[in-house]
């Protein structure tokens, strides 16, 4: 996919109003991350319940606690399987009219609009699972006090790097770099190509 198609007004772009979805593989990454978080939490809770019951000799209360634990386990399983696709469906973004727009949230909806000229720098992050799935997260930073960083997860790593370079290029108002750094090079991980605000003033 050519990088130029991300921006409005460039050839190959769809209708300006169209939102892009994330890479569907991000669902699996979210499931893995969420599953592991739940597993660690539940394992710790189990140990605390068991040891606590023995030490405090809770007797029958142990089974009540265990029942509660099983209930949480069921909730965790359902949440891990069912929630990520829902979150995926509500996570969209677009770059139109020189404004980055990221929408997300199932219960608590949020739409964040970042004017391109306000970008301070862009982080490209890859977690462990993200890397194995070839995905990356872009984090847009502004100089704002309260809403200063906006993450955009679930982008194919090469696409993320290309998007970042393109946006940075726009900031400096200079032609785009021709070559795109390979996604697995260490330079792209946490590669925060810093564009300070002076470029905009």
């Amino acid at each position, binding site marked *: 996919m050519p990088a130029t198609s991300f921006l409005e007004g460039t050839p190959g772009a769809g209708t300006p109003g169209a939102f892009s979805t994330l890479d569907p593989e991000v669902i699996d990454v979210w499931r893995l991350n969420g599953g592991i978080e739940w597993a660690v939490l539940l394992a710790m809770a189990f140990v605390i319940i068991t040891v606590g019951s023995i030490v405090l000799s809770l007797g029958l209360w142990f089974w009540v606690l265990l029942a509660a634990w099983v209930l949480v386990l069921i909730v965790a399983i359902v949440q891990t399987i069912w929630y990520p696709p829902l979150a995926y469906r509500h996570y969209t973004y677009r770059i139109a009219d020189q404004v980055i727009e990221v929408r997300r949230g199932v219960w608590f909806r949020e739409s964040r609009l970042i*004017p391109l000229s306000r970008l301070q720098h862009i982080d490209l992050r890859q977690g462990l699972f993200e890397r194995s799935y070839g995905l990356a997260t872009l984090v847009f930073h502004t*100089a704002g006090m309260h809403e*200063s960083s906006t993450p955009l997860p679930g982008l194919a790593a090469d696409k993320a790097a290309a998007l970042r370079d393109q946006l940075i290029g726009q900031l400096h108002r200079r032609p785009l770099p021709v070559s795109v750094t390979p996604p697995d090079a260490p330079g792209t991980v946490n590669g925060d190509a810093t564009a300070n605000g002076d470029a905009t003033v």
Partner: protein
Amino acid sequence: MSAEAAYRLSLAGRLHPWTLVFGLFAVARQMLIPLLYWVFSGFSVFGTLLVLTFGIPSLLLVVARYWTFRYRVEAGELVVEQGILRRQERHIPLTNIQEIRLEQNLIQRQLGIARADIETSTGGGVEASLSLLSVDDIVRLRQCVFEQRGEGAPQAEAKPAEALATTEAPLVSLGWQELLVAGLTSNGIFTLFLILGALLRFAEEWLPEAGRRAVLHGIETTVRTLGGQSTAMMLATLFLSITFLVLLSVVASGVMAVVRFYDFRLIEQGTALRRTYGLLTRHISSLSPARIQLLAIEQTPLRRLFGWASLRVDVAGVAYERQEEQQGRGVLVPLIRPAAAEALLSRFMPGCVITPGAWRKVSPLAIRRGIMRRSVWLVVLTVAALWWWSWPYGLWPLVGFPVIGLVSWLDYRARAYLPGPRYWFVRQGWAGHAVYAVPVSNIQAVVVAQTPFDLRLGLATLILDTAGQTPVIIRDLPVAEAYALGRQVARQVEGASERKAAGF
């Protein structure tokens, strides 16, 4: 070429020799406990050793700092260097300097020296602290920084000093009567707790045990003799003591305001705004209007009653940690008529004028949401009351329901917004009141958010984020309008930055 050279080395200097004396005092204060031990132990050997081992290094540091500290303005940067073993040289671009604050206490004022704190937009408060300089040096430094920055060219430096002086225009000056009013109408409850805390500390630290007991006993017997006679007497005593405390706090906050803002003057000096205030510690701070993130015309309920307001400013990157600092530094004008404040807006930010008829209301559903949100407390209170009293009597908190309705309606009426081409205005507050003016060019991000309640009612919240500390939040907008406004303002921000880049 000569102009270039003049521009390059326009100002250089070092700390004032008095720094050594004040440094000595600071060390002595740090060393209070070892010093006391030394004196009370009859200048024993161990005491001497203690003082020497702890005191000498600190003293050496003070001397070394004075000896190595240099500052200069060159090539559009303020350079501050210090240190012997680890030499540190800090370059601060003049364009990033937001404010040069001057602070001096009573003694320093007599000596004509002060501390200069340099704040930048990078966040985290003070970037460099020049302590101490002579006041003349600070004035020259300030002129150098703000003039060079304003024009970015050496012509400013060539301007004679008299020409600079003529550009000063006084905007606001407050006498002690007005400051007293400002203090009397500020938040009295806060001051009350401050005073009670101070009294308690005084009693604990300074009064001897017997004296403290005598005072407590005196209070106790007075309360008994007065309150023990009848219910009416008891109520009267209670009422009188509360009145006394409130009066005390009001008087104290009045006095505090006079001390803090004594001889307050706001002066437009070239491109910068200069505030001068303070009775004991004198503050002088310059602020470049371009860095204003938000202006707020705020009214406490009392001030609203008497038709007064205060003007507050948010600048980038300065998070006020202590309440005290916030009160002093964020305040642009402690007391002003709301109409005068609105008139001043355009003085600080060109073209910033509120068109009275152009205010746009939020959705009337806001009343319903307000009632729902506030009723949660009512329900909790009713449940507690039902548990405490029996069936019909426990329902008394429901009497508050009409009040909640009224408050929600007032709240809805108070809230409005005004999207302008260069400035957005937001007003809110049913008891106290606030009007915020936000320059579009300083908005960093826009967020449209919906809670599950909002989803059901078709409402949304619009948040305009700046680099200042006050988030501008417009609640209860119809969802389509919120999204449209969000896109509009984001577009405006882009446009503003293009205008800026084009040189406007």
